[in-house]
């Protein structure tokens, strides 16, 4: 009789689930839609052109150096450069139209040239920035440094402005100043050599001249970037993470419905009828838990099936491990639903608290953004969040290509969470009303 009753409970819950259009949409369509959106935003889709950072450059100097800086920035593929006045730029930043505005003040070229060899005071570049775009500010600062160094050094080692400034500096060194005698002699020798370089360059131009030096100081290294994925030639698919995250989020939502459904059934007196049958309490909860796990598994399966068909998510690791992680996640989510039913009093009051708990769980679990972007301390704290293990497990078996053995600890932890939630649910479930 026990198996018969268990099967009837599961069948009934599945029938009820599939007759509830809202529940079906929430469990199947919603995770796919939101995961697709997050995937597009965060995946860095290989074929999509990346957005450029909008900046403004106000050149109040108009020198060779400042023009070279503007030219360098404009040629940079990560920036979208426009001009304007200081006031226009300030307003554009304030309104969020421009992320950073760079003001090159009058006299910057000369002052930068003089400061290049360390003698004179450094001129200031003014950066007006949108405080909500800290990451972009850091990026623009780095790019600006590169182009300023390139423009100033190019001019100082080959341009007319550089020659003039070198001769001016040599003249200044003839009179005693703040610099120590030894330093002054050494600098005079270096500038003298630079000056002789200019004269030689003028006497026999072009052939044999160093192009690197004519172009100014360049980055003294090149970078070869390689995304380390499971195998060479297998690109990272960011949709894998977004589908894992949203899949976990919405199966937890589905299990909130399981818990709330149990509270509603209790409110309607249905549990009296269930309890009147000669069935154990464990069997009654197991029936509920099984149907919840099946619904969760179907939701996760459908989400990943869509991701695999449309966004080419692939299980690069063990297929068995992937299925095992899905099953363990579904069982964990289902027992979480039972816990909601055990701790909740009324359906209305419980729903809000449960949604908040799930949102916190998936946020801390890295379902929205990967947990590796969290601060180190938070990454440690989130180890107590079951959603973190579920998302990491799905990430591991998809794009990271983890084996079954490597995934076993994750599966074990998920099942441990399921056992904990289940035990608490059995202990706290209110059987008498």
């Amino acid at each position, binding site marked *: 009789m026990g198996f018969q*009753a268990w*099967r009837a409970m599961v069948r*009934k819950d599945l029938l009820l689930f599939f007759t509830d259009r809202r529940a079906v949409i929430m469990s199947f369509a919603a995770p796919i839609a939101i995961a697709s959106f997050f995937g597009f935003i965060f995946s860095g889709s290989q074929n999509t052109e990346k957005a450029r950072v909008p900046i403004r450059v106000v050149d109040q100097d108009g020198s060779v150096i400042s023009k070279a800086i503007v030219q360098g920035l404009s040629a940079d593929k990560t920036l979208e450069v426009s001009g304007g006045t200081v006031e226009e730029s300030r307003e554009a930043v304030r309104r969020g139209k421009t992320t950073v505005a760079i003001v090159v003040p009058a006299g910057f070229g000369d002052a930068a040239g003089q400061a290049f060899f360390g003698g004179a005071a450094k001129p200031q570049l003014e950066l007006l920035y949108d405080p909500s775009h800290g990451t972009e500010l850091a990026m623009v600062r780095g790019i600006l440094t590169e182009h300023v160094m390139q423009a100033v050094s190019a001019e100082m080692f080959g341009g007319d402005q550089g020659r003039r400034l070198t001769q001016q500096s040599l003249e200044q060194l003839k009179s005693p100043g703040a610099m120590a005698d030894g330093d002054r002699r050494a600098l005079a020798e270096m500038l003298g050599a630079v000056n002789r370089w200019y004269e030689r360059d003028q006497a026999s131009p072009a052939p044999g001249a160093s192009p690197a030096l004519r172009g100014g100081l360049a980055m003294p290294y090149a970078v070869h970037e390689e995304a380390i994925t499971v195998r060479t030639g297998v690109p990272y698919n960011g949709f894998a993470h977004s589908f894992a995250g949203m899949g976990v989020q919405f199966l937890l939502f589905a299990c909130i419905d399981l818990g709330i459904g149990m509270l509603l059934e209790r409110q309607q*007196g249905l549990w*009296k*009828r269930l309890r009147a049958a000669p*069935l154990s309490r464990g069997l009654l909860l197991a029936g509920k838990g099984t149907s919840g796990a099946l619904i969760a598994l179907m939701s996760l399966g459908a989400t990943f099936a869509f991701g695999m068909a449309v966004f080419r998510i692939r299980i690069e690791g063990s297929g068995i491990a992937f299925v095992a992680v899905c099953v363990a996640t579904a069982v964990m989510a289902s027992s979480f639903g039972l816990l909601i039913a055990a701790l909740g009093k009324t359906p209305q009051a419980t729903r809000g608290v449960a949604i908040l708990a799930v949102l916190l769980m998936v946020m801390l679990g890295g379902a929205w953004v990967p947990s590796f972007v969290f601060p180190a301390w938070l990454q440690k704290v989130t180890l107590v969040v079951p959603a973190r293990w579920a998302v990491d497990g799905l990430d591991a078996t998809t794009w990271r290509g983890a084996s079954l053995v490597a995934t076993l600890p994750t599966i074990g932890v998920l099942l441990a969470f399921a056992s904990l939630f289940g035990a608490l649910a059995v202990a706290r479930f209110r059987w*008498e009303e």
Partner: protein
Amino acid sequence: MPPVLDARSLRKSFGAITAVADVSFTVDPGELVGLLGPNGAGKSTTVGMIAGIVAPDAGEVRINGQALQGDTDPAKAAIGLVPQDLALFDELPARENLRFFGSLYGLTGAKLDATIASGLEFVGLADRAADKVKTFSGGMKRRLNLAAGLLHDPQLVLLDEPTVGIDPQSRNAIFDNLEALRSRGKSIVYTTHYMEEAERLCDRIVIVDHGKVIANDTVRGLYGLLPASRRLSVELRGEAQADKGLADATRALPAVASAEIADGVLTVALDDLAAGAPGVLSLLQQRGIAYDHVVSERGDLETVFLALTGRTLRD
């Protein structure tokens, strides 16, 4: 032969509240016993303990002489519970509801199908088998609620306020169902706070108040607890209401148990209507008292409850 149900000294508290203090009664085969009492008297908790869904703090429930023990006691299959709530899945068709509840008792296959069909036929819902419960009227839901408790052919049927909130037609249909069940030899416990239902249906009535049994007898036996079995009410004309000595004079008449005047109505309790009524009317004539309306009534369970507790059932 032991009674089908033997509830012995049942007691149940929820925190500081004692829902059932001391309830004992039996139900014999084919007997329909009413559990009558006001709201909060402890009827539903008593039914819960009998059904095995509420664990008693003290006392025991015996089904066919065997003490009910634990959730999985097979003896629970002899009990069919029809809860006060409409314990049905609104989004499922009537047939699927019954299929589920039948499966809980191990019914399968053709036997389950046949049971479902006869259950729907029994409550007059065969033509609505495929319709979702949410499309049913309140009365139809009540009838399906009844059918769901009978699928496994229980020997004892527990009905907790089965007619709450339904139309007279559905109520009568349920009464017909209960009489049919009794004729099949089923034992029935019927909780209600509607005295007319208890009077009409029950072979025996257990009156419960504040968690205790205060009376347990047939309807006739309960009437025997009244100081008088008949009541005569005389609606007096305006000036007659000022006759201060009328109530005392009436009480002095033979066969009169009590008499009082309230709101212009003289109410007289009589042991024998034929012996007492002529004397009351003669007294009124002798004193020159005019009246507009005379009504005689039999005592009812309301009167019995009032006599036993000093309160009405609906207090």
